[in-house]
């Protein structure tokens, strides 16, 4: 703990360039339990920027990569002296890392189930909040040459469809949507994650895949998205939580607040996410 404080102090000194700043930081630390500071951090960046410092470590689902990277840069701009570092990956393995003791401040998962692994282990501080939702979409080849317009079209003969494996969130959601309409669909492969499924379509090895809207958006013009009504039955909630052993709790709260703010939501919806 002493070393961490010392490190934070040094950083502050570099930024402020004055010895008195260290005292300010110390007082900010002692006041960090006050949750009101989080709100002020996001709503009035100018007034609180001198209070926040240090590094915020965020573990986030791979699908959040683009939007969270943008938000991280924004956060650092609003709060000079802070730094946001990310670890993007599969929600399952991230959850395993956190319960295994990885030093993280914030966890943003792609499913309530994976978040539950962390809350069950008692590693989250407070109740996780859903900050965005993600909906399934069919990814087809550019121009949709197979004229796919519904989930049922995927059962057509000779069509090569890949799905996520039922063990991973996107696969579970797909299964839920298929079950909702009582449709049996045999793919050529159950992929180990959503990127694997998308890649198969991008490389034109598969004709279609059921993936998230955000993935379709991120793939640009390499795939074409087809919305389907059943996706409403399998909307995925993305929860975010401050972790109990967060080394930098005050700045972390500010980051969570930024994600939930109107500004943050704009970035996320721009990437294809739905508002909670």
């Amino acid at each position, binding site marked *: 703990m002493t070393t961490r404080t010392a490190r934070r102090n040094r950083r502050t000194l570099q930024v402020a360039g004055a010895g008195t700043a260290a005292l300010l930081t110390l007082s900010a630390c002692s006041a960090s339990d006050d949750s009101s500071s989080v709100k002020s951090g996001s709503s009035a960046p100018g007034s609180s920027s001198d209070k926040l410092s240090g590094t915020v470590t965020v573990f986030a689902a791979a699908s959040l990569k683009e939007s969270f990277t943008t938000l991280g840069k924004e956060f650092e701009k609003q709060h000079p002296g802070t730094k946001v570092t990310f670890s993007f990956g599969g929600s*399952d393995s991230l959850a395993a890392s956190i319960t295994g003791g990885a030093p993280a401040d914030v966890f943003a998962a792609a499913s309530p189930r994976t978040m539950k692994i962390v809350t069950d282990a008692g590693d989250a501080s407070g109740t996780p909040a859903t900050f965005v939702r993600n909906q399934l979409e069919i990814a087809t080849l550019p121009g949709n040459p197979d004229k796919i317009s519904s989930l049922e079209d995927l059962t057509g003969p000779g069509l*090569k469809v*890949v799905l996520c*494996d039922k*063990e*991973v969130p996107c696969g579970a959601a797909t299964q839920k949507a298929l079950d909702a309409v009582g449709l049996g669909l045999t*793919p*050529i*492969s*159950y*992929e*180990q994650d959503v990127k*694997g499924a998308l*890649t*198969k379509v991008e*490389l*034109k*090895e*598969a004709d279609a895949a059921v993936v998230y809207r955000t993935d379709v958006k991120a793939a640009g013009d390499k795939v074409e998205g087809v919305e389907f009504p059943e996706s409403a039955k399998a909307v995925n909630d993305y929860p975010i939580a401050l972790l109990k052993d967060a080394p930098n709790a005050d700045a972390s709260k500010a980051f969570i607040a930024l994600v939930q703010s109107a500004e943050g939501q704009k970035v996320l919806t721009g990437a294809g996410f739905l508002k909670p």
Partner: protein
Amino acid sequence: MTTTAKSDAASGTLRGGPRRRRVREGGGRGAPLPLLVPALIGLAFLVVPLIALLVRAPWRSMPEQLTGAEVWQALRLSLICATAATAVSLVIGVPLAWLLARVEFRGRGIVRALVTLPLVLPPVVGGVALLTALGRNGIVGQWLDSWFGITLPFTTAGVVVAEAFVAMPFLVISVEGTLRAADPRYEEAATTLGASRFTAFRRVTLPLIAPGIAAGAVLAWARALGEFGATITFAGNFPGRTQTMPLAVYLALQSDPEAAIALSLVLLAVSVAVLAGLRDRWMTAG
């Protein structure tokens, strides 16, 4: 073992006299401590994780975990594909090793580096590379598709291709090393007896390097059996067709770590049994 050696050494030092001999007794026929200690650490490093797997294995629920048809389907597919991939590697890898070892040509060093590239390539990247080459729209695959109607991705043959791609370098390196160590003059002797270079290779060189080929084949087989990244990327994951044990283990890990451990143990037991059997019959004979 380590503690015995250390305490013996320590007591020997205290008494001054028979230190060396005592270390020798403790450490097994004169192994010097600077070698013995790292050697034992190395052994522990490799063995302890496997022991941990055994200790934490859900022995009580094991029977239920392993009764599913999918387990045996995956195991059978793994064994078939690894063996087929080894066979493919032998048929095209041994001649490649011969070319690298025995024929002087420009750029041989570059070719050798290319051959070993799959060793350092992340297997997932290898899988993507295979897709771009042999996939439905790959630079070779599109012709395979339009001329012969052959598509490799998402098929069992695709699993064999992915495993062979990753495993063959092990065989080529092993066989090339054996060939370099083998006396090329035996081939010369054969040609003076009227044998063409191919006959000389088949009837003289091949039997001479058989132990090296066997060792390389075992390495390749073991690598193919554990292959994950290239397989799932190139051949996908479908039970009974392309879902090998490592894929089943990985996906089980997402939801049920206990099932994953149980599956891993089955794979481990089968490969240990096969390798031990081969070692007794082949490796020592050579």
